[in-house]
C-alpha cells in the first residue's frame, strides 16, 4: 500500500468507527434518556406508564407514610401546582423528609402513581439539585 493510501484508509476507518459510535449513541439516547418532569408537567404531558423518568419537587408535608414491612414508604411529590403519589422501597437518603427537595427516578405504574427505583435528595443543607431549584423557581413565578 502506498503511504498516502494508508493514511486515507486509516482516516476513513477512524471516521467510520466514530460515525458508528455516534449512531449507536444516538439510538441509545432515544431509548434511554430519561426526562425530568415536575408533577404538573408529568400530568400535563401524560407520561406513558413504564417510561423511565425523573420526577422532581418537594415531599408534600403530611404525605409521608410507611408500609407495615418497614422498608416501603408512600409520599407525594409536589411542585405547588400538582402532586403525584409515589412509592419507594429501600433506605431513603439522609435528609429525605417532608418539605425537602427530592428527585425520584422511576416510572408511572398507573396514571398519578409513581414508583421510584432511586431517590436522590440534596446532599447537604446548602445544596439543592439545580433541576429542583429550577422547577421551584418556575413554580414561584407561575403562582399568583
Amino acid at each position, binding site marked *: *500500500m502506498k*503511504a*498516502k493510501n*494508508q*493514511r486515507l484508509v*486509516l482516516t476513513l*476507518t*477512524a471516521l467510520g*468507527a*466514530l460515525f*458508528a*459510535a*455516534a449512531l*449507536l*449513541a*444516538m439510538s*441509545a*439516547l432515544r*431509548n*434511554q*434518556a*430519561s*426526562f*425530568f418532569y415536575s408533577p404538573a408537567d408529568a400530568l400535563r404531558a401524560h407520561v406513558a406508564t413504564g417510561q*423511565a423518568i*425523573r420526577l422532581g419537587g418537594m415531599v408534600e408535608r403530611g404525605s409521608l407514610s*410507611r408500609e407495615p*414491612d*418497614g*422498608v416501603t414508604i408512600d409520599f407525594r411529590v409536589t411542585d405547588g401546582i400538582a402532586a403525584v403519589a409515589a412509592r419507594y*422501597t*429501600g*433506605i*431513603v437518603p*439522609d*435528609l429525605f423528609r417532608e418539605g425537602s427537595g427530592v*428527585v425520584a*427516578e422511576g416510572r408511572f405504574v398507573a396514571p398519578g402513581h409513581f414508583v421510584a427505583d432511586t431517590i*436522590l435528595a440534596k*446532599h*447537604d*443543607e*446548602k*445544596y439543592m*439539585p*439545580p*433541576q429542583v431549584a*429550577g422547577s421551584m423557581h418556575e413554580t414561584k413565578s407561575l403562582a399568583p
Partner: protein
Amino acid sequence: MIAETGLIALLLAAVFALLQAVFGLSALRPGGEPLLRAVRPVAIAQAAMTVTAFAMLLLVFARTDLSVKLVAEDSATTLPLLYKVTGAWGNHEGSMLMWITILALAGAAVAIFERRLPERTLAATIAAQGVIALGFFAFLLFSSNPFERLPMPPPEGSGFNPLLQDPGLAFHPPTLYVGYVGLSVAFSFAVGALLTRDVGPAFARAMRPWVLGAWIFLTLGITAGSYWAYYELGWGGWWFWDPTENASLMPWLAATALLHSVSVLATRDGLRAWTIMLAVVAFSMSMVGTFLVRSGILTSVHAFALDPRRGAFILILLALYIGGALALFGARIATVTEGNRFDPVSREGALVANNLLLSAILGVVLIGTLYPLLVESATGEKLSVGPPYFNATAGPLALILVAIMAAGPMMRWRRDRLAAIGRRVAIPAAIVVVALVVLLVALPGLRILPLLGLVLAAGTAAASVAPLWKRNLRRTPLFTYGMVVAHLGIAVSLAGMASESAFSQETLVAARPGETVHVGPYAIRFAAIDPVAGPNYTAVRATLVATRGQGAPIALSPEQRSFDNPPQQTAESAIATRLDGQLYTVVGEPVPGGRWQLRLWWKPFVTLIWGGGVLIALGGALSLLGRVLPRRRAKPERDGYAQ
C-alpha cells in the same frame, strides 16, 4: 498574615508563569538562544511559589483561621485535624489551588528531569505549560480567591460536608489530580513538538514516561474514587455513570489510547499525527472534566458551589486552550512527515483498532455526558442520561476492546499472518469456549453482558500472560512485565465487574434486635443497637453477627451518624471482606415496632474490581521503571513477542 503570604505567593507564581511563557517562546526566535537557560529556573520558581501558596492554605485550614472566608464556610474548630487539613481541598477554591499546584509541579518536574528532549522543544513545552498555568492563575485570582478575608470572623465555621469526612479524601482527590493534571505535560509536549516541528520516535520516547506517570495516578485515583463511593454512599454500587465519574473516565480513556499510540510512534515511527492529536485530546478531556465538575452545572457531591461566572470563565479558558492547540495542530500537521507504513494485520493494526475503540467509547461517554446539558441549553427541556444508556453503548464496545487487547500482544510488528496468529490465540480461544459452555450449562439464567464478561475475562487472563510463554523470564524486560500485569489487571477487574453484576444478592428488611436475617450464604443475627459518640457526631451503631455454615462468626457494626455542623445524617456501612467476596451492611432508620431498617448485600468477588485497578496501575509502574531505568541488557528488542 498567613493568608496574605499565600495570596502574594500566588501573584508571584502567576508572574513567573508569564515569564515562563514569554522566555520559552522568545527562546524559539532567532537570537533567542540565551533565554533557553532561563526557562528551566523560572518554571521551578513558579512551582516553588505555587507550593508556598498551597502550604499557606493548608496552614490556615489546620489552624481554623475563621477570618478567612473559605475556612469559615467549609471548616469548623470541632473537626478532627485530618479533616481540617484535607478539608482544604474539599471545596471549590481549595481544590482549584491544588489543581494548579500540581500543574506547576508537573512543569517543574519536566524542567528538572527531562533530558531527552532537544533544548528548543523543551523550551516550547515549558512555555506551553506556563501558558496553561497563566489562565488558571487568572481564574483563581479573579473568580476563586481562596485567601479572601472576612471583615467579621464568625465565632464558629459552618462545618464540613460529612460525606467528605473520610480518610478517602486524603487520597482520592490528590491522586486523581496528579493524573488529571499530569496529562498537561503530554499536551505541552505535543504543543512544543508542533512549534518546533519535531515529531518522531525520539520525541515519543521522551514523552512516554510522562504519559505513563500521569496514567498510573489517574488509574489509581479512579480506582480509589470508585471504592470510596462504594463504601461511603452505602448504595452498594461501585460505578454510577455520574457525570463527575465520567469526567475522570474520559481523560483515562484518551490517556490509555495515547499510551498505546505513543508506543507505536516510539517503536515503529508510525501514527505521528494521531499521537499528537491524542495528547491534545487527553488533557482537553481533563479540562472539560474540570469545567463539568467545577462550573456547578452538574448535580453532584463534587459540585461545591453554583456561580455562573466561574463556569463562563472556565469555558472561555477551555475554548482558548483546546481551540488554540487544535488550530496549531491544523496549521502544522501537514509539515509533519508521514511515519512508517504497516500491514493491517500486525501489532500496529491491533493498536490502531485499540485506539479506535477507546476513542469510540470516549465518544459515547462524552455524548451521554454532554447531551443533557446541550438539550437543556437548546430547548430548556431537562433530562438525564443514566446507566442504561452507558451500559448499552460503552459495555459492548468495551468487550470488543478487551478481546482485541487480549490478541494484540500476540501479533508481530509490521506484518503478521492470520494463520500464525490463529495458532497463537488457540489456547485462550479454547479457554473462552470451555468457559462459555460451562457457564451456559451451570448457570442458564445468566444475562448476556455478565456472561460475556466472565468468559472474556478467563480468555484474556490466559492471553495476557502468553507474551511470557517460552521466554527467558530473567531477561524479559520490565516493560513487558508491565504490559502483562496491566492486561491481567483488566481481566481481573472485568471478572469482578461481571461477578458483581451477575451474582450479587440483596436483602432489605426491618428487623428487631435479636432477629436473624439471611443474605447469600450468610445468616446474620441483629444482636444489638446502641448509641455511640464520635469526635463531632453522634451515632446509632447496629451490631450484626454474621455466620456462614460452620465458620467463625463475623461481627459488623454499621452506623447511622448524625452531624450537627452542618446538620446532616450519613450512613456508615460496615463491610466484611472475604476471599470470595464482600458482605456489605447498612443500617437505616428506626421504624415502628422497635424495628430498624437493614440493607444487606453479598457481593461475590467484588474486590476483584479494585484489585484489578491496582494491578493495572502496578503494570504501568513496572513499564515506567522499565523505560526509565538503564536497560538490563544491550539488545532488548526482538522481533515477535518482545516489547
